[in-house]
């Protein structure tokens, strides 16, 4: 009856998990691709800790304690409330096949032939109407309106107590006077619906309507139910829980790897991708870095408090990025780029990863999250013709004051106002200053003339970089390590960086409007596309010769933790913002449709 149905729905409900920078996740085509839902709600990912080697990667959560407080076992039985006893009269002989035929022909008509038949025959036998909640009798060939009670009359006179709704496939019992939910019948309905969907073709038919793929709720398979029952321990995700935090053992100057792993395991979209088990491996076992990454996420979200020993990861890195092999201290930034590159190459099996060999058209998870487009405009000083190229990037490397490359003066037109709420201590450089410098027009001197296609000769030019397309995760690399011919040193100039960053002034589109004389200052606050939130900071302490990497990462919305190899400690926002900063990871605040 209804009480158990209500219980069933309560236990199937999903609850939300607050990601650190709380992007607006309800409408995002990237996430649609990841989660394939037209009705999207914040995914809850909960790892069921298991004693045996079979670990279950769950996709939705199950409320840990139902009304009766017994958890998973309740779900299994409550999922299929018994239908009314009146279906027993129907469930005789070859009823399953008969029901399938009814679904196939009159409810979920997949093929052209069944559609034609449905179109012709599905009308009320009493009044000929086709749109008044038509039902089909389950005992004989009779169609009748529900709204005008024609099917009710039939049921009464013929004592046929079951009918099926031709629009949605629900089964109505005239004795109970309500729709009933029979496990076996629902199973058949679901199977026939899926079959019909397949027949109707792939999602490209729906693409013009902008719908994307069909959404079907997740149901546990028999095997998954078994696993859930054998592993009854549940973990509730609250605002203060520390799941996802885990130390990493230093295997000999491997803090350059550890610090990046901490940043990656706390990148919300990457975490969601791996915990939803979306990687399909096409490589030899034990050679795929993406699989190892997946394992790493399982370790981090397992709830184990002891530090993890990433020896397999190190081995894979040495195998696939030989320039990082060896026990010397390496550059964390180099490791980041190498890791992203190997992950990108190993994503061959995932979705559109088939295009992995074409760097411009890959759609793997790494590209979806990290790849942005950098626009380079070279303007000929003579004819003012502009030659534009757009290159993909995974990070932005920024020069700092105090390096051999001149930092000041900034581009003309900068008004020195406080942008992005950075602390403007007198003289202190901000991230925004660095970005302004990065995107300033630069005169390429007379020794670097370029061939101008307009003038057909070599001319002096100016070059300017702007952001064409922003990645979901923007990584800023402050170039603190100088390796010029003369000296090798570390630049320790303090650069203040903000918690929230607006990239609008550095966009190619903004530059175009500025050139056209339009001042967009007031519009910036309305445009949410370019707003970013800090979620990880990698710091380097020490000198070029001997140094140590640590990472600050963000949990939930406002909690920060310092990851120093095996030691994780709570940190304040002030600790983070006062730190020197080497690699800064920002996450888009709002994820929009493409």
């Amino acid at each position: 009856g209804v009480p158990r149905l209500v219980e069933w729905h309560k236990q199937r409900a999903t609850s939300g998990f607050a990601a650190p920078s709380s992007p607006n996740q309800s409408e995002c085509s990237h996430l649609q691709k990841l989660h394939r839902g037209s009705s999207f709600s914040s995914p809850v990912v909960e790892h069921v800790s298991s004693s045996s080697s079979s670990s279950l990667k769950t996709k939705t959560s199950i409320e840990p304690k139902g009304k009766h407080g017994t958890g998973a076992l309740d779900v299994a039985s409550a999922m299929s409330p018994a239908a009314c006893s009146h279906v027993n009269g129907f469930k005789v002989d070859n009823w399953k096949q008969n029901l399938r035929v009814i679904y196939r022909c009159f409810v979920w008509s997949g093929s052209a032939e069944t559609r034609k038949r449905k179109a012709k025959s599905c009308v009320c036998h009493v009044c000929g109407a086709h749109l008044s909640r038509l039902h089909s009798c389950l005992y004989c060939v009779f169609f009748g309106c529900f709204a005008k009670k024609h099917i009710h009359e039939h049921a009464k006179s013929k004592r046929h107590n079951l009918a099926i709704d031709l629009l949605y496939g629900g089964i109505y019992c005239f004795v109970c006077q309500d729709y009933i939910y029979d496990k076996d019948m629902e199973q058949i309905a679901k199977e026939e619906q899926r079959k019909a969907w397949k027949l109707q073709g792939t999602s490209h038919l729906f693409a013009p309507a902008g719908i994307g793929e069909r959404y079907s709720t997740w149901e546990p398979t028999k095997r998954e139910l078994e696993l859930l029952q054998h592993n009854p321990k549940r973990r509730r995700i609250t605002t203060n829980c520390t799941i996802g935090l885990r130390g990493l053992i230093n295997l000999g100057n491997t803090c350059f790897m550890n610090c990046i792993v901490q940043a990656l395991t706390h990148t919300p979209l990457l975490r969601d991708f791996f915990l939803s088990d979306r990687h399909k491996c096409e490589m030899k076992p034990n050679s795929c870095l993406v699989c190892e990454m997946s394992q790493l996420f399982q370790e981090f979200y397992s709830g184990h408090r002891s530090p993890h020993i990433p020896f397999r990861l190190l081995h894979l890195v040495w195998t696939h990025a030989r320039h990082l092999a060896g026990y010397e201290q390496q550059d964390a930034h180099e490791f980041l780029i190498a890791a992203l590159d190997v992950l990108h190459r190993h994503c061959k099996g995932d979705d559109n990863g088939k295009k992995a060999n074409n760097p411009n058209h890959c759609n793997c998870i790494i590209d979806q999250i990290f790849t942005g487009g950098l626009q380079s405009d070279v303007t000929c000083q003579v004819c003012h013709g502009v030659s534009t190229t757009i290159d993909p990037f995974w990070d932005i490397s920024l020069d700092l004051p105090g390096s051999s490359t001149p930092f000041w003066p900034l581009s003309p037109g900068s008004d020195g106002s406080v942008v992005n709420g950075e602390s403007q201590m007198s003289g202190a450089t901000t991230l925004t200053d660095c970005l302004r410098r990065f995107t300033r027009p630069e005169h390429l001197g007379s020794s670097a003339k370029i061939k101008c296609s307009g003038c057909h000769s070599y001319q002096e030019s100016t070059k300017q970089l702007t952001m064409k397309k922003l990645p979901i995760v923007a990584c800023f690399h402050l170039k603190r390590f100088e390796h010029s011919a003369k000296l090798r040193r570390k630049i320790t100039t303090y650069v203040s960086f903000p918690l929230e960053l607006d990239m609008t002034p550095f966009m190619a589109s903004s530059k175009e409007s500025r050139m056209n004389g339009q001042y967009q200052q007031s519009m910036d606050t309305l445009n949410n596309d370019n707003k970013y939130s800090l979620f990880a900071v990698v710091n380097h302490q020490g000198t070029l010769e001997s140094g140590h990497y640590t990472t600050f990462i963000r949990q939930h919305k406002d909690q920060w933790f310092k990851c120093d190899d095996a030691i994780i400690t709570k940190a304040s926002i002030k600790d983070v913002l006062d730190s020197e900063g080497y690699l800064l990871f920002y996450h888009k605040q709002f994820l929009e449709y493409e």
Partner: protein
Amino acid sequence: MSKESQLRALVNQKLIEMGERERLKELLRARLIECGWKDQLKAHCKDVIREKDSEHVTVEDLVAEITPKGRALVPDSVKKELLQRIRAFLAQHATL
């Protein structure tokens, strides 16, 4: 049956035959979810169940309660889009 209802039946037949009805249904479903209609109605259903005796609410009760609100809350833009789709479809299959 009146001329109009005959025409309606014919249009409906064509829509079903060509699979367009299914596509329109999916389109409508997606749009109603996107604009929050589904969530609003769902909340309304919960309210209705809470008000009535939750042991004895039938589907019919719910249908009766939420249909007027449901109809009223469909955004005009959605109605327009569907109408355009149907018109386009009919124009394409003008051999009616």
